């Protein structure tokens, strides 16, 4: 492409941009969310309880047109959520259950619906408002017992889409599946050892990483991505 032509394209693009700002918010729902407690299927992906594909990075993104009764909402990127044999942890609960949502951004809401099978067991109005920072719903499930798959749907007011999230429940006693083996609590460090993710370090602890020794400046649990070489706020090279 010649420079002149390229500039013409850029100029046209600049002319279009203000229109895009107006049009795009209506075209893409600016809201994302899922049930984090009891951990939904996508929450278990994000928390590493079960191994999953891309959904582990974006449990909040299970968005699809309204009206589905699938855990994926029919979104082809996340069909693994529809697999009942994926090893999901089943949450042992009583006959009333409080579900807590986590949002990454919040959109005007029509309502929240909870389904078991094709039966709507609860509905909460959204009144076209944004949800609060932490939103919990208490749902009466006394008509059910044993293992059930509950689907919650967050219907967005100003788009055609909804967000879908399934929670596996063992209602009213009985034995749930084995608790998740992952997510071990942090361990205490050996003195002067090699830096290791998952270790709880106290200010003053020393570690080696690469061929360098570092002193911890701030109490924290070491995480992948927080290696001493790239976190001068946490580790001082000695």
């Amino acid at each position, binding site marked *: 492409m010649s420079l002149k032509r390229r500039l013409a394209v850029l100029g046209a693009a600049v002319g279009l*941009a203000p229109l895009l700002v107006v049009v795009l918010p209506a075209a893409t729902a600016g809201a994302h969310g899922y049930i984090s*407690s009891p951990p939904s299927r996508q929450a278990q992906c*994000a*928390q590493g309880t079960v191994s999953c594909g891309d959904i582990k990075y974006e449990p909040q993104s299970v968005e699809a047109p309204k009206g589905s009764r699938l855990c994926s909402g029919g979104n082809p990127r996340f069909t693994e959520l529809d697999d009942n044999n994926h090893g999901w942890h089943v949450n042992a609960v009583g006959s009333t259950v409080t579900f807590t949502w986590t949002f990454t*951004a919040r959109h005007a809401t029509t309502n929240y619906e909870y389904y078991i099978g094709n039966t709507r067991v609860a509905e909460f109005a959204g009144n076209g408002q944004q949800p609060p*920072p*932490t939103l919990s719903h208490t749902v009466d499930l006394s008509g059910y017992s044993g293992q059930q798959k509950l689907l919650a749907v967050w219907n967005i007011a100003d788009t055609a889409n909804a967000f879908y999230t399934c929670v596996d429940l063992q209602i009213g006693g009985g034995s749930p599946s084995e608790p998740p083996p992952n997510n071990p609590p942090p361990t205490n460090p050996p003195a002067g050892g090699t830096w290791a993710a998952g270790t709880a370090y106290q200010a003053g602890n020393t570690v080696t990483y690469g061929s360098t020794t570092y002193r911890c400046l701030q109490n924290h649990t070491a995480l992948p*991505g927080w290696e001493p070489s790239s976190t001068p706020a946490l580790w001082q090279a000695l």
Partner: protein
Amino acid sequence: MRRLAAVLAGLLLLAGCGTPFTATTGGAESAPPLPGTFNDTDVMFLQMMVPSHEQGVEMARLAAQRATDADVRDLAAAVELTQQDEIADMAGRLRAWNQPVAADPNPRAHTGHGGMHATDPAFIETLRRIPAGPEFDRNFLNLLTGHQHGAVELARMETGRGEDTGARDLAERIVASRTAQIKQMARLLAR
């Protein structure tokens, strides 16, 4: 002419973040990218991440002082300090490229990308009004979890389409550390 193209691309970023168009700011189309070149994804990533990080720092600073659970306080303090360093790093990269550090201070300006990268300031204010206690800890963990999901989403855009090695490395560390924080916060919430 290169400068004019950069200015136009900058306007694009201001107006609509520029994703629908491949306005290359750092390299010519006919030549392979030179070391140290960058593209509009790199710029957009950094410009959107700086205000997102500032919000994260604000939440974390509040929790480092007010959280009841010592582990929550330690996590919050470590998040505050590491994100402050990252802000300085990101702003430095933008300045080195002669790009504005803030494309648009209004977090709603990016709703065209789904608006998922910024937390509504009203929710940080709500958090600020909650007194110390389990209710504060729970709200903080839930809010920061949502906020860090947004950071992961933005960083994955950079690891997928960014060009600058330094910015991509930073994005990879952000994906790793925020994903691990989210796991840690889930464990703290389950206490």
